[in-house]
């Protein structure tokens, strides 16, 4: 049995996407085993009222336990957390989520940049950022910040994405550690924590 501390030290995997991001997750998530040791956070830009069932939809695609995030919820290793609509999602040092209703960033709330930047600040080199399909450039600057603190970053291959702008912006903005199809990104995440 690992101690709570050791588990937390495994870090945090943050996955962001927008248009086409759900389809990418449908292929990525099944690659992760039920006992994947890290906490995984999934953030999709969502229609303001329409996305309450995203956690249920995703739980049919992954063997990991899925949780919708509420303010102050603890970050538990081995769980997959889903960002709620209409709030920004951030992280606190004491391994808890924080939500806020600050103004949208480049029209997006939740914003991938806000999540990635906050994760990079708290988890430092133990942060992994993945940018999936999407039609905006949200996430590119956050990816760069994760890289700057020594974390790992990956982008969906634009050829496999219905929204090419987002992953391409990631690739153009920073040196990414992995570019691949959603399945390949899933395999890559899996072998990071065998």
């Amino acid at each position, binding site marked *: 049995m690992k101690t709570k501390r050791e588990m937390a030290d495994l870090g945090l995997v943050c996955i962001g996407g927008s248009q086409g991001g759900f389809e990418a997750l449908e292929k990525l998530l099944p690659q992760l085993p039920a006992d994947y040791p890290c906490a995984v956070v999934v953030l999709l830009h969502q229609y303001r009222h329409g996305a309450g069932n995203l956690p249920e939809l995703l739980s049919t695609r992954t063997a990991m336990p899925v949780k919708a995030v*509420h303010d102050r919820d603890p970050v538990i290793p081995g769980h997959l957390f889903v960002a*709620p609509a*209409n709030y920004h999602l*951030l992280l606190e*040092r004491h391994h808890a989520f924080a939500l*806020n209703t600050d103004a949208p960033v480049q029209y997006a709330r939740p914003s991938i940049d806000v999540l990635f930047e906050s994760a990079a*600040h708290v988890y430092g080199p133990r942060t992994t950022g993945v940018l999936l399909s999407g039609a905006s450039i949200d996430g590119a600057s956050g990816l760069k910040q994760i890289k700057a603190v020594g974390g790992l970053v990956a982008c969906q291959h634009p050829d496999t994405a219905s929204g090419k702008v987002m992953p391409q912006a990631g690739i153009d903005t920073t040196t990414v550690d992995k570019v691949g199809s959603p399945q390949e990104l899933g395999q890559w995440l899996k072998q990071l924590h065998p």
Partner: protein
Amino acid sequence: MNPAEVEDIEVRLFLEAIHRRYGYDLRDYAPASIRRRVLLALAKSGHAHLGQLQHEVLTCPPFFAHLLEDLTVRVSEMFRDPSFYRAFRTQVVPVLRTYPLLKIWHTGCATGEEVYGTAIVLTEEGLYERAQIYATDLSPQALAQAKEGTYSSEVVKTFTENYQRGGGTGNFAAYYTEAYGGVAMNEALRRNVSFFQHNLVSDHAFGEMHVIFCRNVLIYFGNDLRERVLNTLSQSLCAGGFLCLGASERLGRLGESLAFSDFISEERIYRHEN
């Protein structure tokens, strides 16, 4: 110590400086969100370091007045979370009907959208005449806007859609008039509203409210401060009074110790048993 931890120290010292110089206590706000506000204010100021920004804040009160507006978040929306308003109409309003007089407190009312929203609901339910509504916030600038009740035409589209989804029974356009490229909410909606500054961190409870709206305010507070403020709010409610929180806020364990029970838990509406 890594650079992120050093930055945390700088932010803490900055908030400490504000508190000592001006008495505004942001030290116990939720670290992740207040850090973001501080760094955005730093970027806007053009200073390279928080130390420099701190010096300007300490020596220039007018600059601080502006900065305070940037540190608080006054973003709001009318009928945000329509399902909440549906629940309010169908389940809270029938209880409110049984009281001859209603006292309603909007804490952290920001630019007033929620206040006008509630006023509309009460009007349509025939309860407005017996209601006294208190609308408070920390930010004087937000309160000034709230009192004015003017909003841009852009957001009115969203408000209208929210109103309909939230169970509105009338025509939303009847509640405002076009003004200066935006809209002005009807004077009648604010007849029973008093707007004033109130700081949840340092000011007292005030009394015997039937409903308190504190939506998307506590998320900005750290755990201890949140508990303290919830305590203040519980003291401000009459027996059987309602506390309404934001969509993603839950009372959790604190509910029990403060004598709240779930009224409509999925809409974060709690009732004080006291």
